[in-house]
Structures are given as structure tokens and as C-alpha cells.
């Protein structure tokens, strides 16, 4: 198992290098000259701009600049914001908790809702209960998360006023209030996960329930609960894990837009502000962090997959 994780981690290295090159290359294409921004805008003198260029090493060849950035990035140093001059790493550390909170909240919501719905519907595939649950799941997949978020704000934030409509409270400051602020964003983000997990599990389970080893379990004298939850679910969960892994990319991307709706000070907000201001160090830093988070989560999914599937674990 450990060997498998190591092997996967090693294959991540070249991909991560390629990603960093891609990010850096994209930044080189960005319109506008960072030196001009730092020197004080379009009215700065040419000498001033030139000295900034020299100072930042912007006159060096592309690859020299790339490796300098990479060397710093490996030490979790992404430079300073062109606009505010503050450390990008510090900015990331400040913004990360909000994003992680709603991402993890969304995954939990997705699993807690999606798995039981998928199981109920898959063990009685074709019944009317199955059909109504799956109709709900199809709706859940089609509704865009940002519109769902807006509807939630309207209903629970404004009309019923059960939860704060917008804003974020840190966990350390007030755990209860933190939970209340991340509830709606987590549901908005997690609905898609719940719906697609439910569909996936339903499809797999209804197929697994027809396999010979399930008949063996019935023939042993096992009760429905045991047959479904022990014998069928473990097999049905294997492909569902893969689906969950793929959807986490969509989840992380979705945080950007959800953070805007709920006015959360997360990575997405940080990134979007930087894009508007063409603040390259922030864009590069945040993008890299997003990629790393995504890769680590994918690795975790592979581990779960291996735990569930003995054929992978043993070979």
C-alpha cells in the first residue's frame, strides 16, 4: 500500500513540473507589463521602469526566470502582490481556510445525501421510489450551482432568515457561527456531488445486485441489510470513488463562483481580484495551490480505491 502511494506520488512530480511551466508560460502571455505597474503606472519614467525590470530580473531569459520562480515556489514563496506589495504566501494562508471549509463541507454533504439516495434507489431499481429519487438526482445535476446558491440565499438567508445570507466567520472566532456561514455554500456546491454520486451508486448497485455473488449471499441466509450494505455496496462503491475523484476538480473550480455569491474571503475571491488587477504573482501562486490541492485529493481517492479493491491492493 505504502509502495503504491509512493509510486503515485513520484508520477505526480513530472506532471507538477509541466503544470508549473504551463502556469508560468501563461503568465508570460499576460497583457500588460508588471514593471510598469510596479513603477507606478503608465506615467512612470522609462528609466524607473527599466530599473524595476532589472531589479525583478524581467530582462533575463524565460527559463532563467522560470527556474528562479520555481525555486522560490518550492519553498512556498510566491513573491509579493504587484498591487499591495504584500506576501502572496501569506495571502494564500489567509484565504485557504474559507475555501477548504466549503469544499470539505460540500464533500460531506454530497456523501451524506448522495450515498443513501443511491443505495435506496439502486437496491430497488425500477420501482417508483427509485424513479422519483433519480428524477431528483437528474435535477440536482442540471441546476447550476450559482443559481442554486442564489435561491438558497433568497429562501434561507432572506425570506426565512435562518442562516446568514452572506459573509464568513472564522472557526477559531466562533465555531457555531462558522458552521452557519459555511452551510449554504456547502449545500450549493455539494448538491451536484450528491446528485452524481447518487446516480453513479444507483447504476452500479442495481447491476451488482444481479451478480452471482449476491445470489450466493442470499442463499447463505443473509438479511437484506447485510446483502446490500456488506456484499453489494463495497463492489458498487469502487467505481463511485473514481467518479467522486473526477468531480473534485469541478468542486474546486466551483468555489470561485460560490465564494462570490456568499462574499467569502477564500482563494477564489483572492484569485478573481488578482485577475481583474492583472496581479501575476497572486494568479500564479493561487493557481499552483489549486493544482496541488487537486492532485493531493486525487491521490487520496486512489488510496481509498485501493482499500476497497483487493485486486489493486495485492498486485
Amino acid at each position: 500500500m505504502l509502495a503504491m502511494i509512493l509510486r503515485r506520488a513520484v508520477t505526480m512530480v513530472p506532471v507538477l513540473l509541466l503544470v508549473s511551466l504551463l502556469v508560468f508560460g501563461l503568465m508570460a502571455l499576460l497583457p500588460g507589463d508588471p514593471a510598469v505597474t510596479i513603477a507606478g503606472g503608465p506615467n512612470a519614467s522609462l528609466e524607473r521602469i527599466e530599473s524595476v525590470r532589472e531589479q525583478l530580473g524581467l530582462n533575463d531569459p524565460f527559463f532563467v526566470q522560470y527556474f528562479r520562480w520555481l525555486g522560490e515556489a518550492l519553498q512556498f514563496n510566491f513573491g509579493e502582490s504587484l498591487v499591495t506589495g504584500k506576501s502572496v504566501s501569506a495571502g494564500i494562508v489567509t484565504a485557504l481556510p474559507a475555501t477548504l471549509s466549503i469544499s470539505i463541507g460540500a464533500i460531506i454533504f454530497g456523501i451524506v445525501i448522495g450515498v443513501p439516495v443511491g443505495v435506496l434507489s439502486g437496491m430497488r431499481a425500477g420501482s417508483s421510489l427509485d424513479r422519483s429519487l433519480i428524477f431528483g438526482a437528474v435535477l440536482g445535476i442540471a441546476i447550476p450551482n450559482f443559481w442554486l446558491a442564489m435561491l438558497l440565499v433568497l429562501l434561507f438567508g432572506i425570506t426565512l432568515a435562518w442562516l446568514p445570507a452572506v459573509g464568513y466567520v472564522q472557526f477559531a472566532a466562533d465555531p457555531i457561527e462558522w458552521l452557519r456561514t459555511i452551510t449554504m455554500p456547502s449545500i450549493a456546491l455539494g448538491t451536484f456531488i450528491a446528485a452524481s454520486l447518487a446516480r453513479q451508486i444507483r447504476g452500479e448497485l442495481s447491476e451488482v445486485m444481479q451478480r452471482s455473488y449476491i445470489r450466493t449471499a442470499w442463499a447463505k441466509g443473509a438479511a437484506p441489510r447485510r446483502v446490500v450494505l456488506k456484499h453489494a455496496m463495497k463492489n458498487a462503491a469502487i467505481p463511485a470513488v473514481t467518479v467522486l475523484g473526477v468531480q473534485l476538480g469541478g468542486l474546486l473550480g466551483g468555489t470561485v463562483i460560490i465564494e462570490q455569491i456568499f462574499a467569502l474571503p477564500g482563494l477564489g475571491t483572492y484569485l478573481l481580484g488578482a485577475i481583474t488587477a492583472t496581479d501575476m504573482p497572486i494568479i500564479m501562486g493561487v493557481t499552483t495551490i489549486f493544482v496541488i490541492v487537486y492532485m493531493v485529493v486525487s491521490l487520496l481517492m486512489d488510496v481509498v480505491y485501493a482499500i476497497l479493491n483487493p485486486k489493486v491492493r495485492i498486485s
Partner: protein
Amino acid sequence: MSNNVGTNTSAIARKELKKLESATASISPFRRALQRFARNPVAMIATGYLVLMILVAIFGPFIMPADPTAQTSIPFLPPSGEHWLGTDDLGRDTASRLIAGAIVSVRAGFQTVGLALLVAVPLGLIAGYFAGQVDNIFMRIMDAINSFPALILALVIAAVLGPGLDNAMLAIAIVLVPGIMRLVRASTLAVAQETYVEASRSIGTPIWYILFRRILPSVLSPVIVAVTLLLGIALIAEASLSFLGLGTQPPDPSWGNMLKRGYAFMLTQPFQMIPAGVAIALAVLSFNLVGDALRDALGLVEQPTRVAGKRKLGMTVVDRADRVEVADQDRADLETSNEPGVIHEPQPLLSVQNLAVEFAKNNHRLTVLSGVSFDVKEKEIMALVGESGSGKSVTSLAIMRLLPSPPARITGGRAMFEGKDLLDLDFAAMQKVRGNDISMVFQDPMSSLNPTYTIGNQLIESVRLHQAVSAKEARLRAIELLDLVRIPAAAERMNDFPHQLSGGMRQRVLIAMALVNRPKLLIADEPTTALDVTVQAQVLSLLHSLREELGMAVIFVTHDLGVVADIADRVSVMYAGQIVEQSPVHELFSEPRHPYTKKLLTAIPQSSMKGERLATIPGIVPPPGKWPTGCRFKDRCDFAVEACGTAPVQLELLSDTRTSRCIRAHELQTIEVA
């Protein structure tokens, strides 16, 4: 019937068939899929909606009630005759803006997906066809692109290119490329190995021709489905980027930026965010529904068929019309047995009487078993013999109530076991019988063990389901049973997963699992069919000796009369859902009393016949629903006379120990083949 008897074989057959279809004809399977698609009402409604949306987008400029950017009216008017959906914060007509947004969404969908296809399909074909190094390099690059969360990459690309619809679409197209390429590559990898591609290559067909004319058509189905779903994804992505201010720029309307404005006024004017949100959700929903329906129609996934009928998890539904009649019979039996002076045989362990089973299929019911009756005495091996399709597996599964409902339903008869009718039991009572008093060993040892648990886990589970023993005791019992079925180093094997064992070993494990609670009756459904001949012999002799050691009765289901001669005490021959002959084993072989049995006997391969042509029975067992009136075997029978076709033939008692369902049973030995 085939769906529970040979799930795996039929799945393989289906796959083979599909391969053949895609290789030989490119039009007819698609036409068939289209017909299937057209029969799906939900898909047709969704398609209708999409067609409408596309038409609105095409003719939008002509049908808009007002200029979508003209600030001509009062802000926030409610829907009215003049403004169907009211006006927005700047007094612009919402309906017109929604139509203009449809133009953007449809364009965004088709242009981005089209662009992505243009790049991804050739790349995928090349990667899949050449495989090796080329494939490796392509896939690494795609991995790198794929390791960005999609929307983040689109955001960054849109930032580099600058805000605007065209740039947003380009960004989304780039994000879509890896997914499509991966899909095309995977299908191509599989197809490139096919013989017809190899044949093309060997006669010097140009590569581009092979790629686009030979391979592309056969990888098209999954791509079509993916494209439908991607259209929805592209539409959402455009709306997201516009919502974030990086897509369509105001004052031009798009559904995304309409939502953004609507959100700003949510507190006072909540209706503002409804039209565009509904429009996006409906469009995406329709794309998804069409995509799913296409996937089903093209047969890319196996959908559980919707069958009518009573539903029960893990147990066959019993729905007997002859219930009362049986009860009367019961009393009659009781009365006769009280008569003095009559010598009774000891009660059989299992007595199946008039068992009838139906399967629901496409809204009508098929009788698959009718009037099946037989006894199994204690410690007896009773063989249930017949060709595939004769109903022998259905019979054995029906006794255990293991046929899935729907489609199966037991419509008549009784299965008396130790004084109680198994067909009367509820789930809890049946659960106590299964794996305890009656156990079952199945045909396919490869798929009958759960692949995700160790065999130790599965054996111990069997013990503890029926015996209140500690885990440790159960483990010892399990090891003892593995020893009993002659598995070497039993204790070590406990930690193995099924895939680590050979087929013969797995069948032994299954037998051990069935015997672990010392059942009184073992039902072995073709336990040796999937095994090779030497292993087959080992398993047979094992079963034979275990019967002696444990003193249990066995119902041995098989199509192989050679095996029957080795193992059985008594034989029941089945044909087309009926029992046609019952006899002690020696008499059956020396003097068959039914033409079908006679035929079966001549079809046994014998070493003495080396060089001779193997005898076969021409024709096949008529499937349920196609049974002839009168004798069901008459169309394949050498002895058939006119009377055979007139009325159903009854099972007739020939002697104390023999029965036959043939009107010529008595003359069978004296007449020559007509």
C-alpha cells in the same frame, strides 16, 4: 430466463454481438438506436425543447419583442402583455434579453464543443492508433492540463486573453480537449487491434483513411453521448464566466450576466434572477436527458429493465391460484395415510408438488415451469437432468426462492420440506432455512464468491449467520470445512481473496461454504460445468464422499448424463419446463422410458465410439411461450404420432419407482424408430 441462469455468459454474448454489429454495419445499429431513442418520451420532450431553443437562437433577432439593450421602459416592471417577463433594472425588456442570451448560450455551446472536437478527435485517434511513445507524450500533456480544476484553468486563460465572449469560449474549448481526447483514445486503442483494421493496414490503406473512415465510425457512439453532455457543460461554463465578469460584457446580455445583475437586486426584486436561472437549468437538464437517453439507446450502459409485477428483495414472490386446492389435497393425503393396513414409505425430505413459475417479459407473462413434481429422500442424490432451457436451474432456484421478483413469480404448487411448505415462508423464516437446512452451490465459481472479501471472511460469515458461536470458533469451523473439501494449507488460504484461487479451488470453497452448517439438503446447480475435466472428476468424487460422511441429500442439477451415471441414485429428466421421466439411475440407463431420455443417452460421448460422429439431438428446446400443444417434445421426437399433438400429456406412473410423460411409454422398448 437467461438473465438469471447465465448472467455472465449472456453478457459476454451481448458484448460479442455488439462488436460484430459495430464492425460489420455502420448504419443499421445507429438506425436501431435512433428508433429506441424515439420511443423514450422523456428524451423526445427534451429534444423538442432543445430544438426550440436552437430555433429561437437562430431566428432570435426576428422574434425579439424589443431591442435587448434599449433602455426604453420603466425599471422592474412585472410580467405583462407588453413585457412578457417584465423589465430589468435599466428598463430593458427581459424576454428580449433572454432570447439574446439564448443566442449566446447556443453559440457558446456549439462553438466551444466544435472547436474542442476539432483538436481532440484527431489527437485522440493518433494517440490511440500509434500508442507507445506518441501516446505517452500526448497523455502526459493532457494529464498536466487535467490537473487544473477546469474552471480555474478557464479563468486563467480568460484572464490572459482578456474578458469577452470569444475569449471565454476559447478558454472553455481548451479545458474540454483532454476529456474528449481521452475518450477517443481509449476507444481507438481497443478498435485498432481489430482484424478489419489490421486488414486495411496490410493492403496499404493510407493512415488518414484508416483513422477517419475505418476507426472513427466505430468510436463514434461514446463521442456522440459525450458531446451532448459537453454542450450542457459548455453552456454552464459560459454562464459561469459571464457571471464572474469574464465572458459576455455588458450591455450585451447573456444568461450568466443577467443572473449577476439579478443577484445584485435580489433583496428588493427577487423575480429578476428567475428567468435566466430557469433558462440555464432547463437547457442543461435537456442536454443531460438527451445524452442519457442516447447512451441507453446506443447500448453503452446496461439499464435495468422496468418490469411490472410484485417486487421483493432477495426472495421470489409466491402468488398461487391453486392455494385452496393444495390445502384440500393436504387433507386427502392425511386421510389416506390414516387408513390402516397401508404400508407407507418414510416421508421424503423434500417433496415438490406441481411447482409452476412465471416470468414477466415485455408486459406479458411466460410460463417457464408447470407441474413440476418430485421427491428427494433423505441421504439420496437426485439428479435433475436436461438441456439448457429445460427449466432445471429455475426449478432449483425456485425451491430456494432465489429467482428475482420481478420478473419471476411462483404461481402454483408446494415445496414441502420437513413438514413445512417453503413457498409459505416469509423472509425471516426462509432466511433460517437458507444456508442452514438447505444450501446451494452454484454453476460459476468464478463469479459466485464476492471479490472484495477474503474467503475466510465469507466462510465465517456463513457460520455465524446460523450458529451463535464466537468469531474464533467460527474460524476453526471454517478451516475444518476447507480441510474437508481437501483444500491444502486451509488455514493460510483463509486470508486469500477469490481472485487468488483457481476455479477448482473456488468451487471447493463454495462447497465448503454450503456445508459449513451441516445442511440436510444440498442443491448443486451444475457445480462442475465451469471446471475442466480433471477438476470436475475431483469435485464429483468429493461430493459423493461428503454425502456419505455428512449424511445429507443432494439435488444435483446437470446437463451431463455421464456425470449422472457416476453420482446419482435417482434421476428426474426435464424438458421444456416439465419433468418427462423419473427413474432410478440404473434402470434409466438400461431402459429409458421417454424418447427424450433415449435421445440424451445416445448423445453421451463414449470412448468406444472413437472416430464415429457424435450423435446430437437436432433442434433446440422450444423456449417458454413457444411450447407446442400436446407433447412438448413431439417436434424433435422420432416416435411422434398424431395423437401426441392433441392434448397435454400427463406424467404417468409406470411402476413403483418410475414415471414417464409419453403416450407411447409402454411400447417404447419394442418399436423401431419410425
